[in-house]
């Protein structure tokens, strides 16, 4: 987007008043979104995100600016404006830039921009129709598709130049079932980094659409979930959102470095049941949350956060690394150029254990099987979380019994981690968007089926009997 020569000038303009590090982040990101409802294209939108962010660091201070004017004039003006926050002589300068190469974890076989939109729409319509035909109670069968080809270019005052092109695609199935007692929704949102091959060769979109329809219809006919404390089996895949929300955020340097996380200063300590090994891995081939380099240019890596219950690593970005006296773990991420990067998750999951899902369920006399979870939130200072179950059943005498709706799981991350008493061998990942200080970014969550000995369950169905 800009010449090396201009990059050097902008970096030096940023360094002029004593900053010890300057970084330019350039982004060009064409996006496409399509919505199909009951077999018809309802909306189609194309857009272009385009701009630059410049960051100056001086010890633990950071100043950040962004602009959609990436002309020479625009960038030099921004760098000087930011430099005005510091006062003093320059302590370093840049004279040459070297390009760093990186591994590509997501080479596209069928480039998204080469596939005609008609082909994408065809698959969406098929999925929409399958949901409508699944059951007469499905009145609205929505399918969303979004793709983006985010091209990132980074220059920094260490004299390096990095590039990463991240083609991402995701389809979202949202059926609404209507019955005499109201309406319920189902939801599935498979996605990947790579090309259109994800939906032609890897993932069976039609089957996933049917699962979403099944979820909506089943919830429609389910009873209200009972409330109280009970053992809970959390299903694999999106069940991993529990770890993401309740523990993952508290392991981000964003809160750890400030000492406001429940896991601050706990490295080397037992923070979870010995059955728990948890990993954040940005290098998984073509995964939705994968990145070749983070948004600071660090190569992405596999970080073991918790090994057999012991806290082994945080997720660290450049600035918080300075605060903690630690190196980056390739975790500096941001939604786009208008956000300053900070430590974030990529593909985060609890690793496989030894139990089979059947063994886990059969060990519970009376409890809840939270097969699939919806969204949730957590307070990083207290670790308190809550999330809603999108598909849940009562377990009776070791068997999955009647479906229930309206279940909410609440508790604290610290407690949950310690109360995991069985870990399955059926690890699966699922896709989500994670919102935090540096914006909304694609992440995978994941886990095998697990058993938590006790969680507070909220619902409107009275006491569990």
């Amino acid at each position, binding site marked *: 987007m800009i010449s090396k020569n201009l990059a050097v000038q902008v970096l030096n303009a940023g360094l002029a008043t004593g900053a010890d590090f300057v970084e330019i982040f350039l982004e060009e990101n064409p996006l496409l979104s399509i919505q199909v409802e009951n077999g018809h294209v309802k909306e189609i939108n*194309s857009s272009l995100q385009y701009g630059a962010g410049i960051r100056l660091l001086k010890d633990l201070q950071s100043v950040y600016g962004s602009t*959609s004017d990436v002309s020479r004039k625009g960038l030099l003006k921004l760098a000087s404006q930011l430099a005005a926050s510091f006062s003093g002589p320059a302590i370093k300068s840049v004279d040459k830039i070297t390009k760093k190469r990186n591994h590509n974890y997501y080479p596209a076989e069928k480039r998204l921009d080469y596939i005609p939109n008609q082909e994408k729409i065809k698959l969406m319509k098929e999925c929409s129709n399958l949901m409508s035909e699944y059951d007469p109670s499905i009145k609205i069968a929505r399918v969303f598709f979004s793709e983006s080809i985010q091209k990132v270019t980074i220059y920094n005052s260490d004299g390096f130049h990095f590039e990463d092109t991240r083609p991402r695609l995701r389809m979202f199935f949202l059926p609404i079932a209507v019955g005499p007692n109201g309406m319920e929704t189902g939801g599935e949102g498979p996605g990947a980094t790579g090309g259109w091959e994800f939906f032609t060769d890897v993932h069976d979109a039609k089957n996933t659409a049917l699962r979403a329809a099944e979820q909506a219809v089943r919830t429609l006919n389910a009873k209200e979930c009972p409330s109280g404390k009970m053992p809970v089996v959390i299903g694999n895949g999106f069940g991993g959102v529990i770890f993401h929300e309740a523990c993952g955020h508290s392991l981000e340097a964003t809160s750890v470095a400030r000492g406001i996380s429940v896991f601050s200063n706990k490295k080397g300590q037992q923070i979870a049941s010995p059955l728990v090994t948890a990993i954040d891995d940005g290098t998984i081939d073509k995964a939705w949350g994968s990145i070749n380099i983070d948004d600071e240019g660090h190569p992405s890596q596999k970080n073991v956060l918790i090994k057999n219950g012991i806290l082994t690593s945080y997720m660290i970005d450049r600035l918080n690394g300075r605060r903690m006296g630690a190196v980056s773990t390739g975790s500096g991420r941001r939604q786009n150029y208008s956000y300053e990067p900070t430590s974030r998750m990529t593909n985060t999951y609890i690793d496989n254990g030894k139990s089979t899902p059947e063994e886990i369920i059969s060990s519970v006399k009376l409890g809840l099987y939270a097969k699939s979870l919806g969204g949730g939130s957590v307070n990083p200072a207290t670790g308190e979380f809550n999330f809603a179950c999108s598909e849940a059943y009562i377990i009776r005498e070791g068997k999955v019994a009647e479906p229930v709706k309206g279940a909410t799981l609440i508790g604290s991350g610290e407690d949950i981690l310690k109360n995991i008493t069985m870990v399955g061998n059926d690890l699966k990942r699922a896709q989500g968007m994670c919102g935090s200080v540096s914006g909304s970014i694609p992440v995978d969550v994941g886990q095998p089926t697990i058993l938590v000995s006790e969680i507070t369950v909220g619902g409107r169905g009275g006491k569990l009997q």
Partner: protein
Amino acid sequence: MNKKYLPFFDQAKKLGIIESEITFQKSRATSIDIFHSEVSSFSISDSQDLVARGVLNNHFGAAHTEKVDKANIINLADQIAVNASLNENDDPAIIFKGSKKYRKKNIYNPEVDSVSVDDKIKLLLDIEKRLKSADKRVSEVSSVSYEETYSEFVLMNSYGLDLSSKSNYFYIYAEVVVKSGDEVKTGYKIFLNNSFKDFNIDQFVNDVVNDATRKLGGKPIPSGKYKTVINPKVTSSLLSFYMRSAVAENIQKHTSLFEGKLGEQIASKKVTINEEPLKNNIFYTYFDAEGVATSNKSFVEKGVLKTYAYNLSTAAKDNVETTGNAGGGGSKIGTTYVNLVLKPGRLSEQELFEKIQNGFYLTEVQGLHAGLNPTSGNFSLQASGFVIRDGKMAEPVSLITVAGNLLDIFKDVVAVGNNLELQTSSTSAPSILIKKLAVAG
């Protein structure tokens, strides 16, 4: 009309797009974070956003770019033509010719720009210092931040409609962590305005610390149904979800709780819900996303549903006039409210406590987006609050869930407080007193 955009309208015409429209938004923002007596983050941003839409063969096409040069301005018209040709949405596609009268007011306040960055930083440092010393239990001031935004908005269309507005606002946000033994709680407050004159630092610091300390020692309460006072913050969150049901699009799609209820009693007689887009505050808006003049009006009067909220397309379907509630942009024109207000009553919050004597005071709910189903109205939410005993706020309650149905909440309103509070969502509500709320401990 700004000549810069004429090439777009020319290109659109060439492609057979007779009706077309562009909106252009330019904004400038500054934000400052303080941590441990230092500026930990300072950021500025300049952004521009050009959105265009047009009608081809009765279908909308839309496109958007942040790269605003001549080539991209012309390219928008090409993309509109491509997107419109794939669009099968049969909803009426209308570009607006203009309202008779617009009530334009200047709400931009130069005061925000006239205060220097250094003075703003000094104010934040002062807040941090006061928060630290306000209470021994404050173990960390986890955030003190400031953000100001200035924006200009222009809407132009092929009928010659040419509307513009500019506005600015800032907010100050602070959050503290308090500790007592092993127990940790957090508290926060946001002050949102476009004038520093209304900012009272003592009050602000006191509110932040109190929000955290008063939660210490919180315990669940026995499960059951409680007479409940709901504070302004939670009431306005519930109100926002409730009023989604008055959006005509949701009625037309049969996903609303208010379908077929026009003119009927949907809520308690104590409930009146107005929309005041022309109210003189930072959210003031005199034209909607389609260029229609906005107006102040009542959606629910003494519990009776008076009108649905319309944009041009949903209004054309029902053969009525739009209510000027279009929101969003591009092909995603939806429906929105500006300054939605639950009309306050006469009693203070304390008088509401006295009215019920014993019950529950609900002050926080978590996970509204996941735990509340806007189409069925059912909710089950993690919550916290306080016991009300002998007409007074007593010990804190935490780690409970509250469950119910949105329709019932507003049917069960016994009294509305006088403590109207504006929230960052532009929705404002006072405290309400409801007959019963199911609490699970």
